[in-house]
């Protein structure tokens, strides 16, 4: 049981590349912290620095209040679950799980007892004498977990532990990990690139991009109050729609019409950092759209017409895709998001921005036909086009679900320890 503190940690490779830049994060005892971000954002590097598998170039790393920068992995009392499990192929499951205890010269009887206990928790009892090669992917994953928990370490480090499993098993193991972590109440840092995993699993989430911490907070906080375009686009699936806009007093000009800024958003804007003179980006989550015919009180939002290009029926809902004619939004953050989604090479629709709306299953919208859509103005997100930062402060209005900052450790709009998301202001391209 221990608290893990990153104090201004930087990882610099010999070629000068900085994988992690001035990283500040505080993981309190017993918390499940998720590090999430696109590949190459430095999240794994950060984790490996905690494990002691990477040297720390600058800053201090503390586990349980002790600086461990110079300590070897074996002296840090941490357990790690690797992406490819890293089970020892020449040992049985029992030997794999007891390896750490054996190295620590724990008496054999105690090793057996601890391994049996862990095997019971993980439902591995009947596989203890088998070799990893004879296990299924899910079983191997559980052995890797077992190897971590028999030691009762001060922290678990998990490096994308579920990414090698198939989708169904992944969901199952996700709840399993969550359950085990809560039962054992062991500080855990969990690295993933999957925002769904992050949202469902973590007590708190730290979003990283290009080695820089973007935002830390509870899942709902990141979802409702993303601090910049990157976080807004990364968290949530399908991701947030971005439209270029212009603020004119109480009016917001969007490609889908002019909207009056509601009081709740106004208050947030007033308490926000200011900016947006050179233009803003409006963010609307797909679920804030609706088929206008299903809305009884349209006054809370804005109604517009759009020609639906593609309609995906999910059963419980529809995903309606349409193109809004506009200049399009360009920002390095959004480009990186597109790249991460593998969409960077797709032909750009130069006529405008693609928008996805999530509509109720009762909707009568048809593909290739004009439809009347509505969106909730109260849930508008506004960002500065230059810096990509949000324009909304925490002057929470009554209509918007606002989460207080996690455990009151930092203000909602500011990442921990002042790791300024503006540290690397994206340039508009």
């Amino acid at each position, binding site marked *: 049981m221990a608290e893990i503190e990153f104090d201004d940690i930087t990882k610099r490779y010999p070629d000068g590349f900085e994988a992690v830049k001035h990283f500040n994060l505080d993981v309190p005892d017993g918390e499940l912290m998720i590090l999430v971000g696109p590949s190459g954002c430095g999240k794994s590097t950060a984790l490996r620095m905690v*494990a*002691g*598998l990477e040297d720390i170039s600058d800053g201090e790393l503390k586990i349980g209040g002790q600086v461990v920068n110079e300590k*070897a*992995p*074996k002296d*840090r009392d*941490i*357990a*790690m679950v*690797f*992406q*490819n499990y*890293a*089970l*020892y*192929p*020449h040992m049985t499951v029992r030997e794999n799980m007891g*390896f*750490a205890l054996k*190295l*620590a010269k724990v008496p054999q009887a105690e090793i057996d007892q601890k391994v049996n206990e862990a095997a019971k928790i993980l439902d591995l009892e009947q596989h203890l004498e088998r070799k990893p090669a004879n296990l299924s992917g899910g079983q191997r994953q559980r052995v890797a977990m077992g*190897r971590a928990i028999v*030691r009762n370490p001060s922290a678990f*480090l998990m490096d994308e532990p579920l990414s090698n499993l198939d989708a169904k098993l992944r969901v199952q193991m996700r709840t399993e990990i969550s359950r085990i972590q809560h039962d054992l109440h062991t500080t855990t840092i969990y690295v993933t690139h999957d925002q769904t995993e992050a949202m469902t699993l973590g007590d708190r989430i730290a979003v990283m991009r290009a080695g820089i911490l973007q935002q830390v907070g509870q899942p709902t906080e990141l979802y409702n109050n993303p601090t910049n375009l990157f976080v807004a686009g990364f968290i949530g699936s399908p991701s947030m729609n971005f439209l270029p806009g212009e603020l004119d007093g109480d009016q917001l000009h969007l490609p889908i019409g002019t909207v009056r800024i509601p009081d709740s958003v106004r208050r947030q804007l007033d308490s926000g950092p200011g900016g947006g003179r050179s233009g803003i980006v409006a963010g609307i989550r797909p679920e804030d759209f609706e088929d206008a015919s299903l809305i009884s009180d349209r006054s809370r939002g804005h109604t517009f017409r759009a020609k639906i290009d593609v309609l995906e029926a999910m059963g419980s809902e529809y995903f309606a895709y349409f193109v809004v004619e506009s200049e399009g939004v360009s920002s390095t953050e959004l480009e990186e998001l597109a790249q991460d989604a593998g969409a960077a090479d797709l032909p750009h629709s130069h006529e405008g921005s693609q928008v996805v709306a999530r509509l109720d299953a009762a909707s009568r919208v048809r593909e290739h036909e004009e439809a009347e859509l509505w969106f909730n103005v109260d849930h508008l997100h506004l960002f500065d086009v230059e810096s990509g930062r949000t324009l909304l402060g925490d002057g929470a209005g009554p209509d918007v679900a606002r989460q207080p900052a996690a455990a009151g450790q930092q203000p909602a709009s500011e990442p921990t320890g002042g790791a300024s998301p503006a540290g690397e202001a994206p340039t508009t391209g």
Partner: protein
Amino acid sequence: MSHRARETSGWSLAILVVVVFSLVPVVWIVMLSLKTSASATDGSFIPHHWTLSNYSDIFKLGTFTDALRNSIGIGLISTLLAVALACAAAYAIARLDFPGKAAILAVALAVAMFPQISLVGPLYNLWRQIGLYDTWPGLIIPYMTFALPLSIYVLSAFFREIPWELEQAAQVDGATPFQAFMKVIVPLATPGIVTTFILVFIICWNDFVFAISLTSTTAAQTVPAAISTFPGVSQFTVPYGDIAAAAVVVTVPVMLLVLLFQRRIVSGLTAGAVKG
């Protein structure tokens, strides 16, 4: 006959020819060792009188039994040292990124290419001056040196195939780097280590150039060198039967070893060639 069957039988014929061609000398040596000394040079392939007297003769010769002892001793020690050193070197080459890594590999390759015969003269003089002539270390040192490059190459291919995460997992589990190496890497590389061991042992076992030049008495003479000093019945007769019998005695174990481990040796030599 289908095209396929014709092709198969064609191949079979070709293989048969090659096998017979390469086995004839071995069979001939075996036959020679079973002839009496009088009929050794009678020109017949199959002996008229079968006898095992050549075998009993050579084991009565002190030269041969001493040489056998020297061969086994020197071979095993050289091999053990070479494999142990190569393990360390190959591990470093496979895992660490240090300056001069390419240079070390290049030097190792150069050593392997070095014609051994060109070193025999200088070594002979050097060994005589520092007292290593006709001693076990006098042979162990050159054997080990010439076996190292091959060992390093084979072993580093094996080590490279072992996922790095395993070692890191061991380190996080509380192992020192040395423990991680001994308890995780070495057990996984066992097939490679066995392969290397056999290859190196065969090289040492078969060597003639160093053995004949750097030894003179039964103190350090190995079998290949000892065979050439077998005494005939008289000064003018060559003891063909004894030589053949000794040759069979030292060849058979090696052949058995290779046959037993041939799959491992082949996979050992090609490890890392393609991503498995």
